[in-house]
């Protein structure tokens, strides 16, 4: 009997292991990219106007003066240090622009030139996030005549530790 139970347990275990990865990881948010508040990362003062309706329509969020102004604002705040020089790669930064043009829920990934996850000097990582959070000229999304919260992301490309314009 014990043997039989043991066999059933092992069989069930193998059956679970055999499931494709995607099925095992079915812990999706309601929408891909929905970002919940994380007290360790997020500003407590940042509020969504309507947390039940945060859009995923990045093109609806504008920056005053367009990409050129955005890049200039980033570069004017960027303090280059020689220790950054070895870094070539990308920062992908996702965040929300709420209906009052405020930003929050920042999440960042660092990629190398082959688009693989990588690391950069910690100081550079902190600095890039800080100057991105300091961008103030966002214009929130309007959708169906209504001011909305909306997700947006930025790609910051760096060569030899310096920001490269688009």
């Amino acid at each position, binding site marked *: 009997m014990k043997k039989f139970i043991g066999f059933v347990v092992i069989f069930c275990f193998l059956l679970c292991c055999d499931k494709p990865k995607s099925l095992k990881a079915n812990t999706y948010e309601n*929408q891909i990219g929905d970002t919940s508040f994380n007290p360790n990362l997020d500003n407590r003062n940042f509020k969504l106007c309507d947390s039940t309706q945060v859009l995923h329509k990045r093109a609806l969020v504008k920056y005053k003066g367009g990409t050129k102004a955005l890049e200039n604002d980033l570069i004017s705040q960027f303090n280059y240090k020689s220790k950054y020089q070895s870094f070539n790669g*990308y920062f992908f930064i*996702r965040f929300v622009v709420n209906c009052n043009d405020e930003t929050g829920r920042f999440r960042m990934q660092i990629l190398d030139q082959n688009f693989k996850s990588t690391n950069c000097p910690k100081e550079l990582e902190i600095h890039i996030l800080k100057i991105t959070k300091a961008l103030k000229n966002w214009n929130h999304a309007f959708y169906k005549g209504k001011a909305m919260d909306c997700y947006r*992301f930025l790609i910051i490309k760096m060569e030899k530790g310096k920001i490269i314009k688009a």
Partner: protein
Amino acid sequence: MKIVLLLISFTFCFQTVYGQVNCYIYPENSGERKACELCDEAIKHPQGSKESQLLFDKAIAIGPKFDWAYYQKSVPYFKRGFLIEGLQILNEAIKLNPLEYLCYRAYWYWQYRNYKLCIKDLETYYSMPKAYIQFTPGGEKDMRIILGLAYAKMGDYTKSIKTIKDCFATYKDLDDFGLADYHSLGVIYVKNKQYDEAIKVLKKQLTINKDIVDTYYYLGLANKEKSNKSEAKKQFNNALIKLKDKNRYYNTNAGYNVYESDIQVEIDNLQIH
């Protein structure tokens, strides 16, 4: 009329890329057939929703060789800044059917400003014997033009010009051209300091679509370099006028974008000198 025809053809391309697939081409009760039917269900839900993602997962589990499921599942990740996650999924589709999906990955490499990887995928694609004409997902540009623009972004203007001209050579008549194709070539000519050629193709652009602000700006630049000061001034002013036109054409995937301040700087400089 040409523009209307082009728009219709673009709409057709768009629908081809995003439309449903015909599940009946797969044998009844096959994994692919079941996966295909599940994908048809999935795309009825909002893109990126939990419901759609779960159905794609189910489809992949039943028919792991049905490439379209991976492709469709990957789309919202790319659109929302999750490139690594999107690539992990799309790469499965590419393993199964590179001919169909290499251009799509190249497009996202282009969007995410990795021109080296974009070029690598497109060179691989166009070296395939069965490569066919593919467009950006919005249908506005032939991917060979994107390849040309990517070479330009890497600083190789000569290769860029050759690639775009080779693309044009395959078009049978003017109706085959996209609404900003000549513009793209003209911009690269300006970058490569071939101002006569630039003026010629940018003027040709105006016969196809005269609603791109930047066309006038680059015409202005080319004329300025040719010391045609009055013509340059006229074109920069045309650019400013076009900028105020609500019906102007937004050249998606242009690669190079001009702002009002850029135009104003050129006008001011012409007045000083």
